[in-house]
């Protein structure tokens, strides 16, 4: 419970900074002042105005819930911990002149402002580069926006930066290596005795993947795929859990399409290279089906080859991102009502906090469930690929 309650000051911290900025232009600053005091008393956390958090609100006049939420679930070039504390990650970019590597602190400590037709926007500048909405562009003559509010500056050829999510992936992988190498060592040194400690915690999960996911779905020859399925299961599960840990920059690893795209592509590749003759026959020329129906069926089956992994990808991204959005929406609710009056913000705050705690429990379940679903479906696809004819 304590663990989850950490969430609230974290998110509120980000937003209260936003509000501090907006209150300067607000017609009724006293209301905001009161509200901020209430917040401070409620969470007992001190927040300072942090210049580079301004982009959360887009520098507009009032609190923008949609923009705040999108900012939090998007990737970033820093891991924002709390207040002024952030871990600045390395920026690795390739331009026509070659590779360039520097710390993202250069960006975040050099904020610029641009007044455009649709209101003020802010961006960061370093050397010959611009960071606008976490995308890196060539500086040229400074940021120039078109009518739709998109930059006309040329983007860098390749952004290989260690972003928030990439760092999250590395953290997941380090955790996995530490956990499972130590377990493997425990199995070797302790010999044939009942598992205990971390080993005892992980063994039922390993057996769950092997006995409840891989073997029933794949059938004969399942053990060949178990190492991959175990890796993908624990990768997704641990990534999901990292996303629920507060003060870790609100990682949204498995809620990022780039990550799930890779996982789904690997599933697609393994399915395709393991496909036996029967698998391809069923797709390209289904037996015992009249030929006019074949004409309809075959294109559907071929499309299915690609739709299946695409569905895996979208389901995982959507589920994890949706969880983050719901929690952030409850936070946003407090500030939307807080803009009206302090009392409303205070009242809604209590209700929202309770809902957030509830949602975090749901998300804990979803973290496991989505890892399970992804692994199960991957196993089913492998099973279909290696299935022998039985008719």
């Amino acid at each position, binding site marked *: 419970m304590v663990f989850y309650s950490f969430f609230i000051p974290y998110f509120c911290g980000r937003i209260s900074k936003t509000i501090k900025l907006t209150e300067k232009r607000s017609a009724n600053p006293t209301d905001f002042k009161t509200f901020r005091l209430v917040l401070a008393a409620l969470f007992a956390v001190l927040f300072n105005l942090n210049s580079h958090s301004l982009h959360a609100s887009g520098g507009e006049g009032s609190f923008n819930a949609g923009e705040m939420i999108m900012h939090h679930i998007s990737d970033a070039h820093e891991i924002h911990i709390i207040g002024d504390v952030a871990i600045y990650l390395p920026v690795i970019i390739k331009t026509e002149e070659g590779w360039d590597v520097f710390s993202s602190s250069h960006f975040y400590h050099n904020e610029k402002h641009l007044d455009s037709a649709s209101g003020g926007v802010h961006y960061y500048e370093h050397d010959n580069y611009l960071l606008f909405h976490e995308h890196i562009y060539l500086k040229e003559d400074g940021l120039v926006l078109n009518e739709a509010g998109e930059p006309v500056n040329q983007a860098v050829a390749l952004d290989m930066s260690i*972003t928030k999510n990439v760092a999250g992936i590395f953290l997941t992988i380090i955790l*996995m290596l530490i956990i499972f190498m130590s377990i493997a060592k425990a199995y070797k040194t302790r010999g044939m005795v009942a598992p205990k400690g971390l080993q005892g915690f992980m063994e039922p999960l390993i057996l769950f993947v092997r006995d409840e996911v891989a073997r029933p779905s794949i059938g004969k020859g399942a053990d060949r795929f*178990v190492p991959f399925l175990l*890796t993908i299961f624990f990768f997704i599960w641990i990534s999901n859990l990292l996303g629920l840990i507060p003060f870790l920059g609100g990682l949204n690893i498995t809620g990022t399409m780039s990550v799930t795209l890779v996982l789904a592509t690997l599933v697609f590749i393994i399915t395709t290279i393991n496909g036996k003759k029967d698998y391809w026959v069923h797709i390209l020329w289904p037996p015992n089906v009249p030929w006019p129906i074949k004409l309809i069926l075959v294109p559907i089956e071929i499309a299915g080859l690609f739709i299946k992994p695409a569905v895996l990808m979208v389901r995982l*991204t959507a589920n994890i991102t949706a969880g983050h959005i719901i929690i952030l929406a409850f936070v946003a609710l407090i500030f939307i009502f807080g803009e009206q009056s302090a009392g409303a913000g205070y009242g809604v705050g209590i209700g929202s906090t309770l809902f957030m705690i509830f949602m975090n429990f749901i998300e804990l379940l979803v973290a496991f469930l989505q890892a399970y679903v992804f692994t199960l479906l991957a196993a089913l696809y492998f099973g279909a690929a290696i299935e022998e004819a039985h008719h």
Partner: protein
Amino acid sequence: MLSVSIGTVIWTTIAFLVVVFLLAKFAWKPILNSIREREESIEKALEDAEKAKEMMRELKENNEKLLQEARMERDELMKSARDAKDKMISEAKDKAKEEGDKMITNAKETIRAEKAAAMNELKNLVAELSLNIAEKIIREKLANEGKQKEIIENTLKEAKLN
């Protein structure tokens, strides 16, 4: 979130493939092997236990059979012993009776012989006694002349009569 960043894709691919390779080689293989070995050993232990149980059952059955046999043998032995005892007793009884009868017969015989001998002796004794008496009486009677004459005459008379 929904836009795909090439950098993230490349990093994810590298990182995930590395972790798949490392874990498959250094974690999953030893872990799954250990689990399989343990499962096999448990299965074997259970099988052995089942076998031992079967053996125990057989052993118990054998014991029961042996016990039954022993009991029967004992009963038989006791029965034959009882028979032998009864036979011996009756035999002894018969023999004793026979012996007794023989002894009684012998005794009776002896008694009869003794009796006959005693009778004979008694007869001789009586005869001798009678003779002695008769002698004495005769001597007395023949002591005076008259008497002797009388007797001779009487005897002669008697002899004449004969």
